[in-house]
């Protein structure tokens, strides 16, 4: 299983970029909610693995 890491980079204006690795679907959304805090999200992008993981889970649940 791939390591699950959260990398947050905070710049000199206090803006932050958060990068999640190794998360898929719901686990990804939970971490997103935890780390977002009360901040205003300017940009949000899901990476291919987000969907890949979800498809795998769905395929498993259909069996």
């Amino acid at each position: 299983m791939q390591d699950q890491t959260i990398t947050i980079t905070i710049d000199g204006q206090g803006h932050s970029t958060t990068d999640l690795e190794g998360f898929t679907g719901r686990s990804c959304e939970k971490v997103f909610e935890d780390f977002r805090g009360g901040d205003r999200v300017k940009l949000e992008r899901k990476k291919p693995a987000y969907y890949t993981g979800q498809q795998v889970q769905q395929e498993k649940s259909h069996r």
Partner: protein
Amino acid sequence: MSKYWVSITELKEEKYLVDALREMGYRPEVHQEAVPMNSYYSEQEAKQANIIIRRHELRGACGDIGFARQPDGQLTLIADELDAYHGYGEKWLGRVQQLYKEKQTFAMARAKGYILKKREVIQTKEGQQVRLQSAVRR
């Protein structure tokens, strides 16, 4: 890899703001109800704030610097316009927000069971960045 996002820090939690200001070497006053701030120009409209750094702690500043609680819960900077030219402008506020965000992230990660693996300070052309790496506790 799964997701990334960019967010703008909003100052809402008093304790992290106070901790950030303390780390910068100030001794901020904290008031539940906003109190008047001192200004260099007595004829200026009286300003009030909930968190105040008094002028004697702010080298070269014309007046006190404060943060006032807004109806939406945000704490916004209240300062004499002239002080933006005395080292208390956007860059100063950015440093406050950077420290605030770091302290907020540490506290949240600890409370929710994440493990802090690494903290790095990176020098860039745009200034100092802080990079925090956390992992999920297994």
